[in-house]
């Protein structure tokens, strides 16, 4: 389950803040480059550059409609990142679940005379 060492995986693609903003700006919908330029306040070459990286790792897909290119997030490509973080989440969940049980016990103790 180690993180893949290549320079072109989903992890590296989202390590850049602008690219995470770009994914957020796309959200669950579709957008053209000019719409993304407007939403993010970045230049058109910057948006195109980041879109190219996201497309290269499959995080963003494109649909061509006449002379418009519509971009959208490819959810399944984010799964390796989700899986990786989720393991850490399990550790913390187990720890905080025990804290919760302890708090319940302390609350009961404080209520008793």
């Amino acid at each position, binding site marked *: *389950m*180690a*993180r893949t060492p290549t320079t072109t995986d989903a992890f590296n693609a989202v*390590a850049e*803040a602008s690219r995470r903003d770009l994914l957020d700006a796309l959200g669950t919908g579709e957008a053209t480059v000019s719409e993304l330029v407007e939403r993010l306040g970045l230049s058109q070459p910057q948006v195109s550059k980041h879109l190219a990286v996201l497309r290269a790792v499959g995080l963003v897909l494109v649909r061509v409609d006449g002379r418009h290119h519509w971009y959208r997030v490819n959810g399944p490509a984010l799964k390796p990142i*989700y899986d*990786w*973080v*989720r*393991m*850490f*989440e*399990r*550790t*913390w*969940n*187990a*720890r*905080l*679940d*025990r*804290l*919760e*049980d*302890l*708090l*319940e016990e*302390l*609350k009961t103790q*404080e209520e008793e005379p």
Partner: protein
Amino acid sequence: MNSNKTAPNRHGSAVITLPSPTEILITRVFDAPAALIFKAWTTPELVKRWWGFETSKWLVCDIDLREGGQWRYVIREGEVEVGFHGEFKQINRPHRVVSTEVYEGFPDAAALNTVTLEEVNGVTTMKTLVQHEKPEHRDAHLASGMESGMQVSYNRLEDVVQQLAVPLGHSEGPVLQAPR
């Protein structure tokens, strides 16, 4: 009347997000006042009961709770001793603690931890922001949790299996929540 009925717990509801390449944010809600959580977080006898893993044997649990004071936890997992230490930078009882954290197996990668407790009507949202200096340190931190997370998952599986044998009527299945 003495009711032993407890409120349904929030097991498995912690959410981890990665606000930036160097940060980890852990968010969890508790049906308890902030003061009680603060106490559980800063009293050695109580910390020993929830921090670490269920299989951990505690060797050191020192907390000098004042600004500039040091803390150190050492636990044994099987044959391996795992140590953490740091210094308290800011203490705003019971709402905020800022401290450094060094994992002694990787002493170059210190992190700054900010724990905030926000209470509304007896329900407290706890946020733990872990800030590393470098993305690779943050990633190593996450990856270390991944390994132990595996162990904990198996342990929990074992617990669930054992509970199935004893009809107690209070066993919660693991709940997984996607990071937002």
